[in-house]
């Protein structure tokens, strides 16, 4: 049984993942054509490279179909219940940074913090007869964050894309979304709450606790850990 490593299959995340391993003496290579979703890792025996969509990697880790996986920490923490019981964080990789934040219309001059958002949610419900809607793709992270801070009387509405436009389109009153520079927010007349940082996301290398950790897979992981200077996780 080989050590299966899932990495993002396209774009900057793939390039930077290859570069991160490359800088540590492990040359990842896509096999055959650019359309083939598998590859090899030069210099690491008993390892197999799988190119997957970054959004599928949390599920594959959870199911233990891959031993290691690279994806955004936002996706792992949002998609997996009790994420730290399902995966071990091996390395934050220093790229793919983005902040999951809560934003409201800039013209809400009476709102700066979650405390304000909570008060506005109560008043909004009384006036409009429904809860204040927050559009997001990150239900678990946002719900846990707001519950932890005692915000009530809101509802999450699912947004599949162009989340920043939901307020203007009257499908939500506020949003929770990923931003790196804040430019899209400003262009859509939104502002971030001063205490509205839900999660600081970064590309991260994870180990799956549910994977089949055979002696061969463990040996390949030990080899990889030694070459990359990572601490070995505690695995079942």
């Amino acid at each position, binding site marked *: 049984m080989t050590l299966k490593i899932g990495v993002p299959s396209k774009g900057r995340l793939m390039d930077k993942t290859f570069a991160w391993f490359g800088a540590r003496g492990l040359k990842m290579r896509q096999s055959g054509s650019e359309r083939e979703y598998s590859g090899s890792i030069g210099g690491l025996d008993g390892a197999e490279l799988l190119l997957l969509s970054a959004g599928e990697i949390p599920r594959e880790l959870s199911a233990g179909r891959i031993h290691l996986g690279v994806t955004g920490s936002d996706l792992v923490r949002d998609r997996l*219940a*009790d994420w730290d*019981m*399902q995966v071990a964080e091996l390395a934050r990789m220093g790229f793919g940074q983005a902040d999951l934040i809560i934003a409201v*219309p*800039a*013209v*809400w*001059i*009476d709102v*700066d*913090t979650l*405390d*304000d958002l909570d*008060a*506005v949610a*109560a*008043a*909004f419900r009384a*006036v*409009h007869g*429904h*809860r204040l809607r927050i559009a997001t793709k990150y239900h*678990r992270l946002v*719900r846990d964050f*707001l*519950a932890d*801070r*005692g915000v*009530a*009387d*809101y*509802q*999450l509405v699912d947004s599949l894309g162009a989340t920043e436009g939901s*307020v*203007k389109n*009257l499908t939500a*009153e506020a949003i929770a979304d990923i931003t790196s520079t804040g430019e899209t927010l400003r262009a*859509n*007349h939104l502002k971030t709450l*001063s*205490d509205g940082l839900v999660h600081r996301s970064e590309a991260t290398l994870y180990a799956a606790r549910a994977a089949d950790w055979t002696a061969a897979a463990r040996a390949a992981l030990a080899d990889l850990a030694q070459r990359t200077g990572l601490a070995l996780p505690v695995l079942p």
Partner: protein
Amino acid sequence: MPDRLPDRATIRAEADRLYAALLDSGAQPVEADILLPAGALLDLYGEDIRARAYVTRDPIRGEMMLRPDFTVPVVQMHMAHGAEPTRYCYRGEVFRKQDHIGARASEYLQVGYEVFARETPATADAGVFALFHRLLAPLNLRPATGDMGILLAAVRGLNTTERRKAALLRHVWRPARFRALLDRFAGRTALPQARLRLLDRLGSASPEALMQAAGPFIGLRSPEEVAARARSLIEDSIAPPVSPREAALLDSLLAVSGTAPQALARLEDIAASLPSIAPAVGRFSDRLSALAALGIDTAALPFQAGHGRSTLEYYDGFVFSFHADRPGWPPVASGGRYDALTAVLGQGRSIPAVGGVIRPGLVAALRAAP
């Protein structure tokens, strides 16, 4: 949670036994759909229920939910049919999505009992508790009781603005947030820097001018709503704090814990300085008499003023639960008074109500391995 639950047939038999006992006590049998329209439940519980209930989409009926509890459908049904005094019992599965890895069940049987009565609430409260107490007596469970009505009355009686009282009432069920708000309103913690900066800005020009400068108006929340809250923030910043005396009384009230007679003495003491809670403390006292009349040993009955604060937010009076001495178990039975809920779901009608549920799976487990 249960080391191992007995098999389903054993649990079903236990549910039947409890249900039969409730029927014997004179309750009307009632059924509820398993697939419920999500709207009323979402409106009542908010986003919390979406994390805890199975939500699915029906092509015609829209968003539906697998029954997360019986209280809401039973109350809805009762309110739609005249809201006259009656007593119901029911049994069936409820479904709770578990967002943590572990052995908590996501599907289990509940047997429940709900009393809609305009008679003295003390008698109805005591009746439900005594009935559950009798049904569960062989299991040696530890009862816990409280009374949300006393805390709610204390907040309503505070000498402060209606807006602050409303904020505190809204967060009675979120203890940490309630504490933070009370400390702020009482001036025991300084205003956060962010609020001070916001007040500075709001003081610098009219809300209309500030909105004009902030950019185009977007969204459903209107400029009038924004301006009204901006003005209310300034009003609130100059409102006098809740007095240290009242805040300290509220602290002592929340700390009340002991046997029921000890708690009653302590609460009567507090009521001498906080007269707004006197009627609610009187109801507590009446309830103890009613419980004693039904054979409950009230001298040993535990009472905590904060009991029930972190459960679902519809109980507004007497609250109770029965606990087994097993680590990690949820309560074997729980219930309470929910007068306000009948008004919320009653579309103009209301009737005082009290009820509770028992988990036959846990009862059967205790019987199998006491």
